[in-house]
């Protein structure tokens, strides 16, 4: 068992890499029809490996599994990567969303399929690398890989919108890069190491116990950088443009998981390392409030289906930030579960967007209406997504939000807890507006002959709806399991 456990982490690096090589080694004409299937296979493999690894690691009682990519005599120094339960759970989420994205891509991606697969692997590798890193610089490098793959994925279809979105993303990411590199440099200047093991609130304050003001600056810059990557307000400006203009399969990846790994995971690391500093948690919480409120208010007034979904992602990231900011194991569990439930319901919603775009050719919700009759599966999947997002029991979103609210309460932020609860009404409001304009009400006669989508998108919608509800129904079991392994 132990050897399997030790072997599993390699999958997360090796699978995308080998798929990448395979994709380019086989002639494009032959590979073309299998590229998306290959992407889906890698995603499925990652999902399976993550589930297995999580179960084995939890059963083994070990905190983490360290490993290195290259053979070395000095085993301790060579093992510069690791998986633990948190990263395995997030790897699971990556695999899950990547699978949903591949299922959608099978229908929506027509040209540049091999390029899509290449970039897909690069994106996967970038996110996996972030989750495996044991030092901030490695984390940063993989973050840049993730970001670069994302820009090209958004822009590769050469629409002016796509280029504009990618450009905005690139510009803002450049700002993030500047801030993060500066922050890392300042930290490195102070401590001489960027390994997680060498960092911490204690490491920053010297012998006098007084903290260097530059360390504060470094942390502020790092937080701002991750905030840009996570799309937290007021750094969210790039996100709706980028997510709206990308292909829907790409939007699923970006909204469903990339912003959380590139942004929220950064906050998880920062709070784990520097959570003893109140200012770190406070600024994360402040970002959370702004993000929830701005995201929801802006989602309420949009007319483009994917733009609403994108702003909804902004708003939901705010909840994840809340959970992280609480700084307690319960808050972390809440945040991770919200990553999962958001991944599930946002993938559902974007699958719906893909279906609508395929069948209608437009995503302007003002032109829709009454489509429930034409597209019952899409309508139903969208309702489960809405109920989960609005936090209606027993859907998955309810439990994760509940844990986040409780953790905020326990952290002494009763006002924030109340604000989170109050703002979730806005979530219900913009989702209800979306439902009403798209699926309910009178139907535009233009859509009288519209049919339900078929194939992989329908399959993915059904599976994802089942996950929205099933994860919620299984939640008490999940909670018991987490309790038994001592995570809470």
């Amino acid at each position, binding site marked *: 068992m132990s050897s399997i456990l030790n072997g599993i982490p390699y999958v997360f690096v090796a699978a995308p890499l080998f798929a990448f090589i395979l994709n380019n080694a086989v002639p494009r004409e032959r590979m073309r029809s299998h590229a998306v299937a290959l992407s889906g296979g890698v995603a499925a493999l990652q999902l399976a490996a993550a589930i297995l690894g999580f179960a084995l690691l939890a059963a083994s009682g070990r905190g983490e599994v360290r490993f290195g990519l290259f053979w070395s005599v000095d085993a301790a120094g060579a093992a510069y990567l690791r998986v633990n339960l948190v990263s395995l759970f997030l790897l699971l989420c990556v695999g899950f969303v990547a699978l949903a994205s591949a299922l959608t891509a099978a229908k929506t991606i027509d040209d540049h399929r091999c390029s899509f697969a290449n970039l897909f692997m690069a994106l996967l590798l970038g996110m996996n690398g972030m989750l495996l890193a044991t030092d901030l610089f490695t984390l940063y490098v993989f973050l840049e890989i993730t970001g670069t793959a994302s820009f090209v994925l958004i822009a590769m279809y050469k629409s002016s919108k796509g280029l504009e979105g990618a450009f905005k993303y690139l510009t803002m990411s450049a700002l993030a890069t500047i801030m993060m590199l500066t922050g890392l440099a300042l930290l490195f200047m102070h401590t001489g190491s960027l390994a997680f093991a060498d960092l911490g609130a204690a490491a920053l304050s010297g012998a006098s116990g007084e*903290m260097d003001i530059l360390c504060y600056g470094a942390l*502020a810059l790092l937080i701002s950088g991750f905030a840009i990557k996570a799309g937290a307000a007021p750094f969210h400006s790039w996100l709706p443009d980028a997510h709206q203009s990308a292909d829907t399969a790409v939007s699923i990846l970006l909204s469903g998981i990339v912003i959380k790994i590139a942004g929220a995971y950064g906050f998880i690391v920062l709070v784990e390392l520097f959570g003893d*500093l*109140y200012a770190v948690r*406070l600024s994360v919480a*402040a970002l959370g409030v702004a993000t929830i409120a701005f995201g929801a*208010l802006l989602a309420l*007034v949009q007319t483009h289906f994917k733009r609403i979904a994108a702003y909804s992602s902004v708003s939901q990231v705010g909840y994840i930030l809340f959970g992280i900011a609480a700084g307690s194991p319960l808050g972390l569990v809440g945040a991770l579960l919200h990553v999962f439930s958001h991944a599930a319901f946002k993938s559902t919603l974007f699958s719906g967007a893909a279906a609508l775009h395929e069948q209608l050719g437009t995503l302007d919700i003002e032109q829709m209406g009454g489509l429930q009759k034409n597209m019952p599966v899409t309508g139903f999947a969208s309702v489960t997504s809405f109920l989960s997002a609005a936090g209606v029991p027993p859907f998955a979103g309810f439990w994760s939000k509940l844990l986040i609210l409780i953790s905020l309460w326990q952290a002494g932020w009763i006002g924030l807890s109340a604000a989170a609860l109050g703002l979730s009404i806005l979530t219900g409001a913009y989702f209800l507006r979306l439902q009403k304009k798209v699926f309910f009400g009178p139907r535009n006669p233009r859509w009288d002959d519209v049919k339900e989508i078929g194939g992989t998108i329908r399959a993915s919608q059904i599976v994802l709806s089942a996950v929205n509800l099933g994860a919620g129904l299984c939640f008490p079991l999940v909670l018991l399991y987490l309790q038994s392994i001592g995570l809470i």
Partner: protein
Amino acid sequence: MFKTICALLGDPVNPMISMCALPVAGGVLACLSRGRSRGALRMAVALLFGAANLVFALSLYLGGGASGALALGVQGLELRLAVSGIAALMLPFAGLLFLIVAVYAASWFHKREGGGAYMLLLFISLGMLNGALMADNLGVLLFFWEGLLCTLFGLLLIGRRENSKAAVKALALSGTADLILMLGILATARLAGSASMSEIAARPLSADGPGALGCACMLLGAMGKAGAMPFHSWIPEAASDAPAPFLAAFPGSLEKIAGIYLATRIVTDLYEFAPGSPMSLFVMVAGAVTLFFGVAMALIQKDMRRLLSYHAISQVGYMLLGIGTGLPVGIAGGVFHMMNNALYKTGLFVAAGAIEDQTGTTDLHKLGGLRRAMPVTAACFFVCALSIAGVPGTNGFFSKELIFDAALESGTIFYVAALAGAFMTAASFLKLGGAAFFSEARLPQGRRNIREARLGILIPAVLLAALCVLFGAYNALPLQTLIGPALGDAHIHAGWPENGTLVLLSSAVLLLALADHVYGRKKGGGALAAADHIHYAPGIKQAYALAERGLLDPYNWLMAAANGFSAACAWIEGGVTWFYDKAVPGLVTGTGQTLRRFWNGSVSRYLIIAVAGVACICLIFLLAALGEVAP
């Protein structure tokens, strides 16, 4: 024979349950009667079941009462029925009156619609009344009391689904009274530690101090059922369009029996009701106000039904005045007056019904000269009218004299009010009798050939008039044989009143009323206008105008207050709805639109915002470094 029946029935509780169940069965039978012979069937049911009920009631009365608990008693609530004293007397009396009004009703509905439902509800009402009279437990009493309210509401609704105003009014007023009664019963049972009337009667509660609330509330409940002010105003409204048998049965007799029975029980059994106590004053004032204003309104009515209905209110005032004195003579007078009133008022309503049946109207403007066409009806009417006016020698005279006696002892003002009431009663009946039976015949076209009423209506009228004469001629029978033992006080003076001065004063008032009638007749030009000189006298005219417009009706005050309250609630609710429907979504959407305009797609603006965001985060860290923010 009655004892044999009792023995045959075994347990004493059985006849009592039968008295509740039998009428319901009769009502169902009457209601189910269909086809051409349904009128005859209903008459047969009325006779059979009315007589059976009377036999049971008499057997209980002659058997010296009974007591028994129902087997289905829940823990802590004993469903006990007990018949003794005044209840034992009231049962056969109610049975007798019911037999008469049931025959009258069956006859009235012979060729009319709605008879089945009416008979059903009438019979159920008897069951409820019997139950209320027999109940020993106050909770059981309340159950039957509410049952009576339900049947009353149903009776008022029959045939008038469109115009249910009177029914709703009755429900609201009687319902309020019943609610107050419920409060009173709760307070009484709590204070006494028991809800059993016979247990409370063994140690009556004090009507002063903590007992005052329970006593006053229970008395208000009893007054509400009897139709005293301020629970009266549904009666004239119902009188305008309810079927004639309803008026005879409910405001005429059955409701008075229930209300006065309960008032008597409260005063004699449940509470120590001392003459001259505040509670006594409260009841007497209620009685005096009811009798004075009720008859004052009756005086000016130009419609037979409305006139009689106001008398039905005013007569309750006399009974309450008598009972409220708390003196044995007053209580006996009150109960005697209630019995007399049930006889003559029902008789008057039956006579009015006979006239309505034959002429098709009750409007006094259109009636006149009926003494020739309907001699028997006229005779019955005059016997009853003399009784209600209290002409010496009639039964009404004897009961009124007892009440006058007690009222004078309690306070001159009450006696004066009662005398004024007697004056107006006599004046209004002179007017009614004169207009309907003596003046020129002024019937509408095609209604000239008026004949004597049907037998089914005449026989009840004659019976009631005969009973009036009997109770007047042999007042020792009701007073010393019936009421005296029932109240546990055998020494009530019967025969001619001892106080000659009071008799002289009463006679003088009657003569004054006659003189006033003659004067008014001359001045107004006809019997119908005989009261107009009082009606249109300066000062009084304005008061009457207010009353006629309903401005003095407590029900209307209550409804106005309720409407104001509901308008205020609607206003507040509108505000709340506006807040949720308009203000909050407007604010949220407006904020969203503003934010949307702000994030307008310009990359340079985005960068500036991002830098500002960094500055904010740095500010948080700066504040933390300076120790300004801390957990």
